[in-house]
């Protein structure tokens, strides 16, 4: 198999796509929710969070999309469980940098397992697949009522 493809579709991504974590999981007591949509490809994502005292106690998502967007949402929910909202915001910023800047940032290890997604950077049409979950997270944390889109 072509190396470029392996670089994009890392084993971890394929695993999370086949068996997404926190998928179709709506935590009891969920008090934040946002809907994300990528009009270009039709990927849709609903994110539920239970936030108490500034901590993301639990979260889950629902929806459909390509392997990149499902894996990204799965990895994100896994990474954020138990994190403080502030930490989540920091991670958002780091992921944004990781996925959208041309050069790989020096401190990629900061994002841990999430770094498997960095392969999308060279596929401009696919970056939005990876960022959809993160934009939806932002909307949920800030509780904007508008559905978020990647546009």
């Amino acid at each position: 198999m072509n190396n470029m493809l392996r670089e994009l579709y890392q084993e971890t991504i394929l695993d999370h796509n086949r068996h997404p974590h926190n998928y179709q999981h709506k935590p009891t007591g969920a008090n934040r929710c946002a809907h994300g949509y990528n009009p270009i490809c039709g990927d849709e994502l609903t994110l539920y969070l239970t936030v108490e005292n500034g901590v993301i106690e639990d979260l889950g998502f629902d929806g459909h999309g390509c392997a990149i967007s499902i894996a990204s949402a799965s990895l994100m929910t896994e990474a954020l469980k138990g994190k403080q909202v502030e930490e989540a915001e920091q991670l958002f910023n780091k992921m944004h940098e990781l996925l959208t800047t041309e050069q790989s940032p020096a401190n990629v290890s900061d994002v841990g397992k999430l770094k498997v997604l960095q392969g999308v950077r060279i596929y401009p049409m696919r970056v939005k697949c990876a960022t959809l979950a993160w934009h939806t997270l932002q909307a949920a944390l800030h509780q904007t009522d508008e559905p978020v889109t990647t546009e």
Partner: protein
Amino acid sequence: MNFHPMAETSFPVQQIRRDFPILDQMINGYPLAYLDNAASSQKPLAVISAIDHCYRHDYANVHRGIHALSERSTAAFEAARHKVQTFINAASEKEIIFVRGTTEAINLVAQSYARPLLQPGDEIIITAMEHHSNIVPWQLVCEQTGAKLKVVAINEVGELDMEQMISCLNDRSRLLALTHISNVLGTINPIVDIITLAHKHGIAVLVDGAQAVPHLTLDVQALDCDFYAFSGHKMYGPSGIGILYGKRELLEDMPPYHGGGQMIQTVSFEKSTYAELPHKFEAGTPHIAGAIGLGAAIDYLNEIGMQFIAAHEDRLLDYASEALAEIKGLRITGQAKAKSSIVSFVIDGIHPHDIATVLDQLGIAVRAGHHCAMPLIKYLGVIATTRASFALYNTTDEIDRLVQGLEKAKALLA
């Protein structure tokens, strides 16, 4: 290039490929297999050279200057109109309006034909397989006038539900707008029958011919359609140029769509009078080189012969349909009896975008998504499809590579 009448199997596809310089390149280490022709097709040297020649030797504004270049440009521009007229067998050059593309042609009819006609409660009829460009202009005009939009359903194989079509046509119907060939399903609609039916009820018909013109021999007089819209870029011509064909008596009665230069006879601040057809609908400086390029594309198609192109594409469609059906877990969306060389499909457990990315890595260009037909995609009960669409320069080898690529995508992602 000089083609002779050829036997079915001797379509000179390799020779034709050499007419399209863009095809001769490597993508991600593989020869390009361009299978996204329903989105836009590539351009032969004849078209590229015609545009080049226009800008190098003949370019000036049309219908204005009293000088050599303007005369040459005008002659070439009007010659292109004449080529379009002959290509679709329109009765008069006055019925050939240069527009930007199918989208603009449909908007023009919606605003200049339908809008003045529509009363609250009147009905516009479209079908479930329309491109957004044959949905949204009608929604806009319905909002403006209080008319209603009715949608004719399709059956499981992707053909129009003719019974529903018949029951939709009534004395409130003002216009039927439908596609000749579906850009997602490939279905070729029985538009002759449909137009006859609509006319029995006194309903005008607009045909969206964006997908049909590059594949079929067209005769708008035989069809008896009232309007026919198509784009240059899907028929090997430039983008930014397209055609609205309309019956002269309808066009004569319609108000202009855009106001500006070229479309007037006299202008005063009190009142302007409009130019004759077709210029009444061509406000402003047109896409001169684009029209000339479109004319060159038509010459090119005529040289090869539309019937031979259609036969070649039919063979590709049959070959692809059989080969794809062999892939486990793959379902072709759109199995109409009359079909053009467009194959949309879904594969269990793999998202079309991932399929398209894998194929791209193997040098194969396809389209993945909703193909600007979101209502249809929803109707089909899928999220998106992958679409391979074939043109006169495609080969069965390329289809073999598509099949191998899909097997790779399955191995990687399923």
